[in-house]
């Protein structure tokens, strides 16, 4: 019988009462489907019930299990051990207060997101005019004028951890800027003007250093870096006519 392969986990442990974090080592078995989260939960179940880790959906949809694995921001539930080397170094997200072990305080992310007021829902794919026309045709069953879906961003905070600028709490940060861009693109009843004011700030869209680390680590394909570039173009289009003393030639921002 084959001995199952194992890898060495080095997990950064932070006890809120102890002054210095430490790395604890655990040897964990590797199956074809084993994820970093599976391994951590097995450690918690079999070796150390005090290992603190957040998780919920187990498929990359809730955004709770963000952490740094071998120095890179990932969702632990969709990161398989077979894609990693040995040892596997597991640390909490950077730039946030560590509540314990791999659990960080998510308040800084939500404090930045909340004022943007982006709805959870957006128009879905295939919800264009053709579809509305087809749905409105007689005899085609229930009418769906506008299909909707949840926004892609899962509020995991990987982008904030990876961003070289977001250590400054005044910076709005990639997640909130990407959310602002969505509000301007598809307002759904929100106030675009107020959001424009929020992001047109030295600590808003202009603070980004174009490192694009946010887009590299985003597990949901949001591309916050690209969104920030689109925001800047929008802000310039809004600003330039004012600077040269003319009225805005074409109103882009929904009132």
């Amino acid at each position, binding site marked *: 019988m084959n001995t199952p392969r194992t890898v060495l986990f080095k997990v950064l442990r932070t*006890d*809120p*009462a102890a002054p210095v974090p430490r790395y604890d080592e655990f040897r964990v078995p590797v199956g074809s*489907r084993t*994820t970093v989260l599976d391994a951590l939960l097995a450690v918690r*179940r079999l070796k150390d*019930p*005090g290992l*603190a*880790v*957040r*998780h*919920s*959906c*187990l*498929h*990359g*949809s*809730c955004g*709770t299990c963000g952490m740094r694995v071998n120095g890179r921001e990932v969702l632990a*539930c*969709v990161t398989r051990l077979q894609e990693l080397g040995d040892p596997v170094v597991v640390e909490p997200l950077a730039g946030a207060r560590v*509540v*314990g*072990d791999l*659990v960080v305080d*998510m*308040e800084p*992310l*939500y*404090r930045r*997101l*909340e004022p943007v007021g982006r*709805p*959870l*829902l957006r128009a*879905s*794919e*295939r*919800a264009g005019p053709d579809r509305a026309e*087809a*749905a409105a045709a007689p*005899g*085609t*069953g*229930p009418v*769906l004028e506008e*299909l*909707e*879906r*949840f*926004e*892609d961003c*899962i509020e995991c905070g990987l982008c904030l951890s990876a961003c070289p600028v977001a250590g400054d709490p005044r910076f709005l940060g990639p997640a909130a800027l990407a959310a602002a861009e969505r509000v301007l693109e598809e307002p759904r009843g929100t106030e675009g003007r107020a959001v424009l004011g929020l992001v047109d700030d030295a600590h808003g869209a202009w603070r980004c250093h174009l490192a694009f680390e946010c887009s590299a680590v985003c597990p*949901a*394909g949001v591309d916050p870096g690209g969104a920030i570039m689109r925001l800047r173009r929008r802000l310039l289009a809004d600003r330039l006519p004012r600077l040269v003393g003319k009225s805005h030639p074409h109103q882009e921002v929904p009132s």
Partner: protein
Amino acid sequence: MDAPHVIVVGGGGTGGALAHDLVLRGLAVTLLERGELTSGTTGRHHGLLHSGARYAVNDPESAVECIAENRILRRIAPGSFEENGGLFVALTDEDMDYRHNFLAGCAACDIPTRELTPVEAVGLEPGLNPALKAAVWVPDATMDAMRLPLRFFATARQGGARLRPFTEVTSLLHAGRRVTGVAVRDRLTGREGELGADLVVNATGPWCERLAAMAGVAVPVQPSPGVLLALVGRLCNLVVNRLHGAADGDIVLPQRALSIVGTSAWTVEDPDDLDVPDEHVQAMYREGAKLVPAVASAAERAAWSAARPLIGASGGEGGGRELSRTFKCFDHAVTDGVEGFVTITGGKATTLRAMAEATADLVCAKLGLEAPCRTRDTVLAPHTAYYTRRAA
């Protein structure tokens, strides 16, 4: 006089909805969860807001609960659902035969339906298998399995509930045959302590037998896991169900840029130790592709298991599928002669509010309080408030 203190053990959807309900009725509430909130069964479900149609033929009690709660939740949690509807799709002659019972069952349970021809159905949902024989539209919707419960937690905390994640109950405190509180260990600091309570509610889902055992009582709950498969790509916008009796891989539904296929069913003893059998994953691919052909070639994002808390005796033949999906509240004073201890279990994510209402009714009756349920009409705070508006 101080309000009676109720400890809710279990930070899933049921515990969150219960904390919210009890706070609205004027009680002092502490909620304890050994891990992060929604880290048990709650966060892992496929995200379906049931219309009840799935249960209309064989489990009408659950069906009626689901459609009632479907309507209430849309009202109290606006913006938390993709309200694109659902289809039950007939692929075979057997499915077509089942259709008659299905439509009659839905009508009996007050679940709206609309029969669609194959052309109409594919017009509405182009992802469907074009070889379908018929489809029935129902008011299914999808939710975010974590963010809907978070709205209950956020609202409960705004109302004064103390929420304590990462706090494990290590034993129950007793005075004779009465439960008087809990002993806890803070999993972040390792600190241990005791909390007194006028009543302790066991809302630990498939783990409820474990807590009940600490009170020296048993609850007839069968942890029944199912495998779910997340695929890369939004392959449909509507919830797509197979029009037949419940079976493996009979639902495909969208979730952001993913699609979820569910599920299978078996039974286990330990809900912490769930396997993801490869043959179940293959069954999800095979059966899901019959409904939405693009499933067959979609890349796997993740496969995982979630344990349902089914009420019923152990050792059923059907992996728990024959058991009702309804919920039940146990007053252990009545069933076991143990005062101060109540268990709520069974049920579904869709019925979390109704489970909380029934439990809070029992809690108030036991504490001699007359306080009507107000959760049917109280609009919930946004999920972001859970993180940004900490109570004092």
